[in-house]
């Protein structure tokens, strides 16, 4: 589904991603771990299409299309979803209204029929139940006055409603206590599907106890320096990121 090849990305003149390559197929859950500053958030933002990131080399193919050429809303309609690390607040814009507009915009772009308010409300109620989210969330303005945990769960909820093909979770676990973490993980697991792929970007291994990945990659100094199965995460947790450098000094070198 997703083929990233030798991606080099610069922000403000500094090169952050230095030749990142990754392949993700439908149905797979890939975890990307790495120390701070390695480029984890950069990866998420570049895939979602945020401006300010300069791709100097490399390519990203999504379902055969050149992803980097597409506008953010086109990527969304194509099934790409980024759960933000710090979801922004949009005062005065009702959460339900926003989500319905987004869903219908995507459906329209795909040539599907739009949902009217009744149908949408029904969809929302179903998903709320599945995600075990309090219904009051839907009456508030987008992320306004939400606690950290509520914001993250709102992101996962949006994912449930928008049903993306490629879901990228950008440090979804940051700032969450253990209960909130479990709830988020449950939500994500409920959305696992043979037709859907996940990229779970995380700093700590903890989340991966609940969202068990198929593949784990270590992102250090702008590149993927090691890949493995779920147990790689445990090893990292036990030995730290510096251990990777020791093991594979060639790859870890700048």
């Amino acid at each position, binding site marked *: 589904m997703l083929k990233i090849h030798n991606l080099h990305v610069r922000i403000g003149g500094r090169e952050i991603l230095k030749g990142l390559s990754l392949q993700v197929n439908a149905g797979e859950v890939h975890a990307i771990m790495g120390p701070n500053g390695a480029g984890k958030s950069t990866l998420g933002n570049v895939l979602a299409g*945020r401006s300010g990131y300069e791709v100097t080399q490399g390519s990203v193919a999504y379902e055969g299309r050149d992803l980097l050429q597409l*506008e953010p809303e086109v990527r*969304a309609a194509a099934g790409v979803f980024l759960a933000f690390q710090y979801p*922004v607040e949009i005062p*005065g*814009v009702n959460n339900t209204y926003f989500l319905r*507009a987004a869903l219908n915009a995507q459906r329209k772009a795909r040539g599907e029929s739009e949902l009217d308010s009744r149908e949408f409300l029904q969809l929302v109620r179903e998903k709320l139940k599945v995600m075990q989210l309090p219904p009051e969330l839907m009456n508030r303005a987008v992320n306004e006055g939400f606690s950290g945990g509520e914001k993250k769960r709102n992101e996962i909820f949006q994912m449930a409603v928008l049903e993306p093909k490629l879901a990228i979770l950008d440090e979804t676990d940051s700032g969450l206590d253990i209960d909130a973490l479990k709830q988020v993980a449950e939500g994500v697991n409920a959305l696992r599907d043979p037709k859907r792929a996940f990229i779970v970007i995380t700093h700590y291994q903890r989340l991966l106890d609940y969202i068990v990945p198929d593949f784990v990659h270590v992102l250090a100094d702008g590149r993927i320096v090691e890949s493995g199965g779920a147990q790689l995460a445990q090893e990292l947790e036990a030995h730290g990121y510096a251990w990777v450098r020791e093991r594979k000094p060639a790859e870890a070198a700048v």
Partner: protein
Amino acid sequence: MATERTDLQQLLNRRYSAGFVTDIETDSLPPGLNEEVIRALSARKREPEWMTQWRLEAYRHWLTMTPPTWAKLNIAPIDFQAISYYAAPKKAPKSLAEVDPKLLETYDKLGVPLHERARLAGVAVDAVFDSVSVGTTFREELAKAGVIFCSMSEAIREHPEIVKQYLGSVVPQRDNFFAALNSAVFSDGSFVFIPKGVRCPMELSTYFRINAGHTGQFERTLIVAEEGASVSYLEGCTAPMRDENQLHAAVVELVALERANIKYSTVQNWYPGDENGKGGIYNFVTKRGDCRGDDSRISWTQVETGSAITWKYPSCILRGDRSVGEFNSVALTHHRQQADTGTKMIHIGRDTRSKIVSKGISAGHGQNTYRGLVKIEKNATNARNYTQCDSLLIGKKCGAHTFPYMEVKNPSAIVEHEATTSKISDEQLFYCRSRGLDEENAVSMIVDGFCKQVFRELPMEFAVEAKKLLDVSLEGAIG
């Protein structure tokens, strides 16, 4: 586009000639202003002598005043002798076919019903719809409640004692240059009187009153709510008011007695002028509300787009103890439009409260200015004011300016003012787009959220129109 209006209102939106049409005869007076013109004007309207005298007093005073000057405006000095103060309806287009297609396109986008468009475009419509029954239906309902809602001209003739008691009591003839002029030559306007304890059963709208299809240049409105009475009044419409007259000098006086409540809402789409902004309307309205009785309440809510240089700002005089004044405003400027709006809250009584929420949106080369005065007089014990002014900039060439003034003479007052100016954050835009909304829709949604606080104060029908108006006005603001 289907409207959500009731049957009654649909009937009302048709043109009708019974009821409130002012008695304008077909011939006009030649341009120029002097006592004879005023007498003639008063005579044409069949006004009692005391009214004629009132006008003359104002005129004599006006002669001693000088027009104000504004450094920022590039307007040529107005020649008051070149204006005709009593004009028959202008030469109107004979049919919609003669109307500017761009204007028709706007009506389309705003969802203006077909039968409305002719009136708004100033087309002289011959057919008189089922006017008598329409007029009777709601007049009956109002009459049952004891509410008087008619034209100023009619009020002067039919209810002189009320007019005499209140006219000029909030904005005296001598108040300012344009108020004096208006007092001398006002043509017509609305008169509303709600007697003691009555809650007006419906929202009053200027749609209900139609005269000759164009706004008067010198309109005068008086709304009086007696003890315990309440009323909600709507002014304006979302379709651009095309007008030959560039200069409007109107006066609106609101009087709220003890425990009375007046809500005055305006949704106005000022004619923006041509692409270069020439021909925009100069709107000198003195709008003032007197919270005369204890526990009274007056609120001004406005949504304005297009180009208008406004001088004199909707104000509240908080005279009665525990009286409350509110001002909620959304002003949007695009292309090369300019808006200058604001409010004055004067706290005089004890335990008075005022709240100001102003949202300005500038796009294109638009310039938006807020000017507000909060004045706490010496004896205004325990006064409270809260002001929030936010400006949103869309695009690189626009401007937003905030000039609040706070004058506090009483130590028990609490006055708080906050203002922010920024553009739509990239984060918010990206967030919306990453969820599938294209840029234009994202901006529209964010702007709507920005204005939510103010839209909440509008009567529902107006709120829907206001949102549509904002969307249409923002077209092309991105990219």
